[in-house]
């Protein structure tokens, strides 16, 4: 297990408007690993994810991909990093003027430099992978929330990312649509995709994650294997947070789905 980390995040600090959003955050993910960020809203989970691909550049700290620290000042390195780190957003952010297929294809043409035909084929493959082979010509406004999120997964996967960042991928979905997106995420985990995911779907992610990172006020205040953190007598912050969530949702207990 002493495989080197594919993504390493070291001592990230980020201040926005005088407020310290991230305070010395560090973690590392190995190939095929899945780290899950948990914590109350405002804890800094989204900001941490967007620091990793420099959508919101960190004030200090180091992001390394494949052992190489990324120089945030270099445009070229940034674009290369973003090609290798896919991102899934809470509210999908599909390009509204492009069909599902074109959404997946656009970066293949613009970023990877594929010709139109090769890019189209690849885009169709990715849509099939998320179960949308029959909907390539529909536009975002014609898709359900779950379908939109699956298109956005296909869009990210098309670039063959080494790491996928997921920022609450099911939080904007109607309850009955969450399942189809979780299924796609589970498949990705099974296929060995390296992921960092912020989510409130604690019991779902417990079965997939190798580590939970519990964040509060810009720091990782607790980390460990889901089974350990969630065990009933652990007295962990994660456990009490999870218990509170499930109480609010009125569903069963905060147990690990096997």
């Amino acid at each position, binding site marked *: 297990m002493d495989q080197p980390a594919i993504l390493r995040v070291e001592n990230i600090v980020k201040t926005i408007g005088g407020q310290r959003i991230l305070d010395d955050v560090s973690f590392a993910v190995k190939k095929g690993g899945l780290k899950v960020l948990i914590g109350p809203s405002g804890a800094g989970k989204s900001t941490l994810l967007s620091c990793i691909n420099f959508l919101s550049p960190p004030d200090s700290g180091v992001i390394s991909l494949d052992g190489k620290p990324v120089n945030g000042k270099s445009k070229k390195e940034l674009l290369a990093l973003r*090609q290798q780190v896919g991102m899934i*957003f809470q509210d999908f*952010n599909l390009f509204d*003027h492009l069909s599902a297929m074109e959404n997946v294809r*656009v970066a293949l043409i*613009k970023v990877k430099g594929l010709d139109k035909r090769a890019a189209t084929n690849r885009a169709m493959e990715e849509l099939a992978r998320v179960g949308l082979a029959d909907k390539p010509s529909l536009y975002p*406004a014609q898709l359900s929330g779950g379908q939109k999120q699956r298109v956005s997964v296909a869009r990210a996967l098309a*670039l063959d990312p080494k790491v996928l960042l997921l920022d609450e991928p099911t939080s904007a979905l109607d309850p009955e649509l969450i399942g189809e997106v979780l299924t796609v995420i589970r498949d990705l985990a099974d296929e060995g995709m390296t992921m960092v995911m912020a989510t409130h779907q604690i019991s779902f992610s417990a079965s997939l994650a190798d580590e939970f990172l519990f964040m509060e006020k810009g720091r990782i205040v607790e980390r460990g294997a889901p089974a350990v953190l969630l065990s009933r007598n652990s007295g962990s912050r994660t456990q009490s947070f999870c218990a509170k969530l499930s109480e609010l949702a009125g569903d069963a207990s905060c147990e690990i789905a096997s």
Partner: protein
Amino acid sequence: MEGFLKAALASWEALPYILGGLWWTAGLILGAMALGLAFGVPLAVAHVYGGRLARRLVSGYVWLFRGVPILVQLYLFYFGIMAYLSELPALSFLPLSSGFFSAVVVLGLTSAAYQSQIFRGAMQSLPAGQLKAARALGLSDGQAIRAIILPQALRLSIPAWSNEYSILLKDSALAFTIGVLEVMARTRSVAAVTHQPLPLSILAGALFFFLTWAGIKTLKRLEAKVRIPGYAHQGTL
């Protein structure tokens, strides 16, 4: 009464001459809209994404052209700037002493100021997530603006753009003051012969009305043609 009939008849005979002015008017408006588009889009992009200095420069440009009356600009360009530039041998390939050229430049630069604000508003109305998603995929800012932002912003701009068209069309009538033989100039010169300006003014009004109608109809069709599927009924009850 007899005088009026005589004048009406003379006007009728002059009709082909007046209608010939439609070409000049159409040329003015197409040239000015195209110039305004070609300058307005980069101005808007610079305003929204170019940082503080670029924003200041664009604002200055917009204030200048919004603040100075078209008629004053026509004189400044035709009798001033263009007259001066026409003496430079390096620019001899341009028809700088033509009133038509000056009018297209003035109307185009003014329209660029207005159009830039139309496009700016449309770009800023797009959700921030569009640019974020494009960047996250590794598109450069330039690629993102060209492939993601502008195609959406320009669609949203069409209704305001057709408004700009109708305003610019009527501003183009001022070009007669620097000798462009467009619709207004021709009706005025015929009226000077018949001494009956009223029927000719009505005719000029009707021709401008027709051009406004035709242009706006065309833009409405364009708007429907490029409408994003699924958004067809947005904003309707």
